[in-house]
């Protein structure tokens, strides 16, 4: 499946804004990303959110990801 | 520190306490008498959360020395309801959702009561200016004004 990352992360993905990974859930996706693009590791360790078909998830590893899902990585967020 | 002996009435009850000369009436109420309904939001008279009446006048208890309360009559939020009967303003604030966090509420109720005792039929503008010294950060004041006006209506028709 395709994972969209935000612009500034592309410095660590050879300039690519959309990455191809094989994953069935959020955790697998993060592990894959960290393995394929070690430059993303620090950000992943600081925390990321995941938008799945438009819905934002904060650190939920086992959120299932379908093959046709729209997957967008977002920074971990806090509110007020 | 040379402490000062004070004999006053609070909400109609005789009370005696000692306090330090620099101690505010607010600190005396809260720390010596256990009346924590008046809140300290600023300690400088800018927020009104500590509003009480002193001989019938609305004041910030943070700007009154405890020592000055000698022989005075103090009214606080704790004296507003009669036993289990809420004052119409108190009920109106609940009914109109005129409080969110509620920390400014005791001061606003004491202030609003003082207003309606002097002016039972204020305009919205009069209510807003009377309460200008009572900061509320949650509500945007809208529901507070409605609640005061509704209570005023009820009190006029009572």
């Amino acid at each position, binding site marked *: 499946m395709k994972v*969209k990352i935000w612009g500034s992360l592309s410095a660590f993905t050879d300039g690519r804004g959309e990455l191809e990974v094989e994953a069935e859930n959020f955790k697998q996706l993060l592990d894959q990303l960290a393995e394929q693009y070690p430059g993303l590791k620090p950000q992943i360790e600081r925390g990321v959110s995941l938008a799945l078909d438009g*819905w*934002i998830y904060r650190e939920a590893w086992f959120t299932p990801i379908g093959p046709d899902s729209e997957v967008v990585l977002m920074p971990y967020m806090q509110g007020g | 520190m040379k402490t000062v002996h004070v004999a006053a009435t609070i909400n109609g009850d005789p009370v005696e306490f000692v306090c330090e000369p620099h101690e505010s009436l607010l600190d005396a109420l809260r720390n010596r008498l256990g009346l*924590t309904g008046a809140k300290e*939001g600023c300690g400088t008279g800018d927020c009104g959360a500590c509003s009480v009446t002193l001989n019938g006048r609305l004041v910030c208890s943070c700007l009154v020395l405890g020592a000055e309360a000698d022989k005075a009559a103090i009214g606080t939020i704790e004296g507003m309801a009669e036993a289990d009967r809420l004052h119409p303003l108190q009920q109106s604030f609940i009914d109109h959702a005129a409080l*969110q966090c*509620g920390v400014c509420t005791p001061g606003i109720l004491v202030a609003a009561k003082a207003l309606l005792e002097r002016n039972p039929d204020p305009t919205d503008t009069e209510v807003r200016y009377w309460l200008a010294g009572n900061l509320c950060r949650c*509500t945007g004041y809208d529901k507070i004004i409605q609640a005061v006006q509704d209570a005023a209506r009820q009190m006029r028709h009572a």
Partner: protein
Amino acid sequence: MNMRAKSERAFKVVGTRPPRPDGVDKVTGRALYGADVSAPGMLAGRILRSPHPHAEILSIDTSAAEALPGVKAVITSADFGLPEDESLRDIQDNCMARGKALYDGHAVAAVAAVSPAVAGAALKLIKVEYRPLPHVTDVDAAFAKDAPVVQAGRTLENVPPGVSENVTSFCEFGHGDLAGGFAKADRIVSRSFTTAATHQGYIEPHACLASMGSDGKADLWCCTQGQYNVRSVCAGILGMEASQLKVTASEIGGGFGGKTTVFIEPVALALSRKAGRPVKIVMTRDEVFRATGPTVTTSIDVKIGMTATGRITAAEAKLRYSGGAFPCVTVDMGAQAAFAAYDLEAVRSLGWNVLTNRPKEAPYRAPGAPQAIYAVESVVDELCEALGLDPLEVRLKNAARKGTKSSYGPTFDDIGLVATLEAAKAHPHYAAPLGPGQARGLSCGFWFNFGGNTCVSLNINTDGTVSVTEGNPDIGGSRAAISQMAAEELGIAYEKVRTVVADTSSLGHNDVTDGSRVTFSVGLATIKAARDAIGKMCARVAKIWGIDEDAVFWEGGYAKPAGPNAGDFPPMSLAEIAAISFQTGGPIAGHHEFNADGAGVSFGVHLCDVEVDRETGATKILRYTVFQDAGKAVHPAYVEGQMQGGAAQGIGWALNEEYIYGADGRLQNPGFLDYRVPVASDLPRIETVILEIPNPGHPYGVRGVGETPIVPPLAAVSNAMSRAIGARLNRLPMSPPTVLKALNAAGA
């Protein structure tokens, strides 16, 4: 069950306006806030703060303070360890400076003594030797290569090289061909903006009472938006196990994001540990302003291209934020939120955070979004003015809607922006005539809204009442809304439910009350806990009736046989089932623990009419209307309250509120006298229009509503004022001298 099914149900309790459970306590002065409790043998804690904006702490001599009769403990950073986790270390260092004081008001030592007066006297006996360092408080100045470095070595790997060491992080979002987009535009406007730091301005100063014994067990009472977070952070800082620290959240006198972290709690615990007695710390208002979280201060460039008919062709924002003396990622959220209201083919937002000698930022209602959206909405309005287009029509023409690829990446599902704009267009306010010197402004606003970790226990009492235990402090009436959802789901009266906020030992972890998450997430957990209890009640009834569990269903507060085949049994009410629960298998309770998702974004539109006094620059807000999609308003009065309160805070931000630093790097206005929050006479009525476009992620359609309302006022007020004076304003706050200057510059 399908939690995303669009709900068309007719509600009985949800949507009504019952009295809040804490109402009587709060109108009689009985409710207990942070500073309202005492303990036997309690000491007063006070904190010594740096008068320097930036200084090396060469030495701290506490001996004279310790010698003062009545002083029981004095602590400095030496009394704390050094946490490995960087963000925890930042929190600790913010609570007690280690090596360097990083801003005016930074804590350097603390005292516990028998009275506040003795503690205050002791503070004056602590000798701190400082070596003042050059300081920087201005966001743009902090970017300069030769700017004083606030903290070295804090730059993240994502910052492109060649900038000041103060720059801690960089982010970029967006999609499309920007240059191509701008080439298609008939008009391009490019403007720079600044926004001052503001404070949440909660009326209750931070306060806590800590009691720690020599056995390492501790109790902490404090006003916080999240007792579990207080527990994790304090346990981490003090090297305790979480189970040994029980944190109880007091009633909270306002938070708005500012009480999502700790300032005095670890200090009170450390003092109590050292003194062996309970310690209470209550901040003064001066301390609140100098040492607790203001917002970021910002400098923003926005460039937008538009066709003559009002279609945006390209949009770009460059956001420079400073979250004070510690790294801060609020700019990430600003950069993501900036263009969220628009359906754009080419959009990019870039963000940098830079360190300054200011207090550590704490979140404030939709953190990062109001500033970015203010700048964007100002430029959109200027384009509308320049092209002679109706600003509401232009928003509608470009509005994000279902299927829009958002500027921050994900594709929107059902969202309420178009409906909200249509409602504003149809409202009498939009067409109301204006007098001379008056003008109208509007702005859109947006917030993401969060879910998060949540636990709820729901106990069915034998008398047929229900006790809900949840773990999020109630900052605006959430206990009422949660009781309503429990009553709705169970089919009982609101009055039969009481919701309480648990201490950290009574329930599993709950994320802080932030991100407009409570009514959504805790409500969702409550509904699921109620369904859990319903399942158990149906199972009991199945046993009583001697039929299959599947043959019993729940409706309107009763267990009923599922159909004629199940048998002919008179329905059993919750009260009847509860009354015999001991005989049928024991107490009945429902639970739900989860990491909630599906919060659903929130949009709002604000209309504002102003009149500007052209001789003094004074602005009067004449009329104000808030339109917002609440998904489903559980307790409409408290939804309106959020909309009105957020609008008032935004109006304050627009007109008068600001952190003012002198050339000496010291805060000039640490009090409500000169930090000017709106007073009652400053504001008109704030009208509200609630739209209900159900959130597909919640069984009742609920969306968070708390944060979005602070976003639009900044630009709504600014756009109205710019139109009133005939000159575009580009800095907040728009204080009268600023306005008069703009008027004079425009040759008025």
